[in-house]
C-alpha cells in the first residue's frame, strides 16, 4: 500500500562561498540517499537542503534574543522533523565551522534522539579528515542521534581523483553513506526519540499540579 506521507531527507550545509563545495557534497549525499530510497520502497522521497549561510544573521540574532526568526524556525523544524539528516560542514581551524556549531546549538538537545545522521565535511587538504571522527561524531553522539558508520570527507583533490588500490574514491563513499542512510531511514520502525511536550500540545504540556507537589513530599 502506498503511504501518503513522504520520507523526508534534510541536508544541512554550512558552506560560506557560492558555489560551495560543501553544498555540492550535501547535494550529492542527498541524491545518493534519494536514489537508494526510490529503488527500495514506494514512498515518495522529499529532499530539502538548508544552507546556513542564508541564515547566518538569524542564527546570531537567535543566540542574542532567545527566539528564532520565522525563516530560522522553519529550518529548525525541518531538521528536527526529518526522517534522515545529512550534516555537512567545511573544516575551519581544525573543527566544524562556528556557524555550523551555532546552528546545532539552537536545536533542542533531545530533538535529534534516534535520528539517523550522515556526517560529512569538506576541506582544502585531506589532513583534516579526522575532524569527522573527533569533532562531528561526538557532537551528534551527544545529541543522541544515530550517526552512521560511513562519514564522508571531501578534500579539494577528491573532486578530481578516483581513489587508489587502498581507498575508494569520493563517489563510492558518497554512495555507501547514502545507502546507509536509506537503510536506516526505512528500517527505523521505533525511534528512541523522547519528544518533550511543548506549548503546541496544549494541556498535554503540563504535569498536573498535584503530581508536581507530591513529587516533593518527603518521607
Amino acid at each position: 500500500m502506498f503511504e501518503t506521507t513522504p520520507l523526508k531527507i534534510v541536508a544541512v550545509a554550512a558552506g560560506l562561498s557560492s558555489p560551495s563545495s560543501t553544498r555540492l557534497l550535501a547535494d550529492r549525499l542527498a541524491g545518493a540517499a534519494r536514489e537508494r530510497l526510490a529503488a527500495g520502497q514506494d514512498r515518495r522521497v522529499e529532499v530539502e537542503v538548508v544552507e546556513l549561510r542564508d541564515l547566518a544573521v538569524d542564527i546570531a540574532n537567535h543566540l542574542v534574543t532567545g527566539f528564532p526568526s520565522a525563516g530560522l524556525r522553519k529550518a529548525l523544524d525541518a531538521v528536527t522533523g526529518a526522517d534522515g539528516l545529512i550534516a555537512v560542514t567545511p573544516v575551519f581551524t581544525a573543527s566544524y565551522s562556528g556557524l555550523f556549531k551555532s546552528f546545532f546549538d539552537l536545536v533542542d538537545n533531545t530533538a535529534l534522539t534516534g535520528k539517523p545522521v550522515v556526517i560529512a565535511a569538506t576541506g582544502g587538504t585531506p589532513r583534516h579528515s579526522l575532524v569527522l571522527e573527533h569533532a562531528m561524531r561526538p557532537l551528534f553522539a551527544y545529541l543522541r542521534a544515530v550517526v552512521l558508520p560511513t562519514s564522508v570527507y571531501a578534500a579539494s583533490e577528491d573532486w578530481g581523483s578516483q581513489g587508489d588500490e587502498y581507498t575508494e574514491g569520493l563517489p563510492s563513499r558518497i554512495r555507501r553513506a547514502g545507502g546507509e542512510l536509506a537503510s536506516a531511514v526505512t528500517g527505523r520502525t521505533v525511534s528512541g526519540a523522547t519528544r518533550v511536550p511543548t506549548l503546541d500540545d496544549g494541556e498535554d504540556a503540563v504535569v498536573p499540579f498535584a503530581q508536581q507537589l507530591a513529587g516533593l513530599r518527603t518521607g
Partner: protein
Amino acid sequence: MQFGIFTVGDVTTDPTTGTTPSENERIKATLAIALKAEEVGLDVFATGEHHNPPFVPSSPTTTLGYIAARTEKLILSTSTTLITTNDPVKIAEDYATLQHLADGRVDLMMGRGNTGPVYPWFGKDIRQGIPLAIENYALLHKLWREDVVDWEGKFRTPLQSFTATPRPLDGVPPFVWHGSIRSPEIAEQAAYYGDGFFHNNIFWPMEHTRKMVDLYRRRYAHYGHGTAEQAVVGLGGQVFMARNSQDAVREFRPYFDNAPVYGHGPSLEDFTQQTPLTVGSPQEVIERTLSFREDVGDYQRQLFLMDHAGLPLKTVLEQLDILGEEVVPVLRKEFARLRPAGVPDAPVHPAVAAARAAAAPKEV
C-alpha cells in the same frame, strides 16, 4: 484594568553621552520614577529583584516601603520576587509588613530568576528551579493563610508551631502573580491556586505569549476558579514615544542598539516587528497595546518597561508624562469599552477597593 510600569533596576551607561549613573543616583532615580507614576495616574509600580551588578534592587521591600510612605494610590509590586532563592518565611514576613505600611497597596509577582550563580550564592541549585518555585510557594501560601504552621519539605528546615508575623492586613494575603516566559509548569501553578499569571512578553513573539496565556486560562478553568475568560492575566510591554514616529526611532535607536539583553543583535525594525516593542507616536502605542487583547483575551494588568538601557532620568520622566497623559487614559476607555461584562478586575486588597470606590465619580 490596571496600568503601570516595571523596572529591572539596571545601572547602564547612556550610550549617547557615555555617562554611567552611580548606584545612589540609580536608586534615587527609581524613587523619582515611582512617584512620577503616581503623579501621572498610573496604577502600579513594580521593581525587579537582583543580586548581582549591574543591578541595584536587591532589597525590594526597603525601596517599596519608602515609596509607600510617599504615595497614596499606587499599588506596589515586584517583577519579580525570587521564590527560588529567597526563604519563603522571609518573603511572608517582609511583604506582610509592607502590606501594613502601605494600607494594602501591595501585591507580588513570583519568578525564578535566571542568573546561574545567584542560586549557589544563596545555597540553591538552578537545576532545581521549578521544584524550588513549587515548594517554596506552597509554604508561603500556607504561612499567609494559617496562623500556626507545621511544615516539612525538601529544601528548607522544617517548621513546628511557627507563626509568621505580622499576619496579613485584615487577614487578606497579598495577591500573587506568577511570572514565566516559557515554563508551562508555572502557568499550571498559577492556575492551580487561582492566582494571576503574568507573561513578560517584551522579548518574545506574541504568538508564544498567546500559547502560554491560553494554557493558563484553560487550566484556571480546569481547577474551577472560574471560566477561562475570568482568569487573571498580566502582560509586559515596552515602548518609546515621541510626537512623531521618526523622532521616536531616531532618539531610541542608540539605546536599543546597545541595550543589555537584545542589543547588538537584530535591528530595531526587526525587533519591533517580531516582538511587542513599540517605538513611535502615542497613537501607535495605543493601537499596538489594544491589539494585545486580540491575542490573549481581555486581561487585567499591563506593565510597561520604561527606564532601562541607560535612558536618562529626564527622558524617562518625559516618557511617563506622555504615557500617563496621552496613552493610558485612551487605553482605559477603550479596554473598558471592549471588555465583556463577565471579565473581572485584578483583585486588590478590600481597603484599596473601598478607597477606590469612594473616590470614583458617582453615577447620576
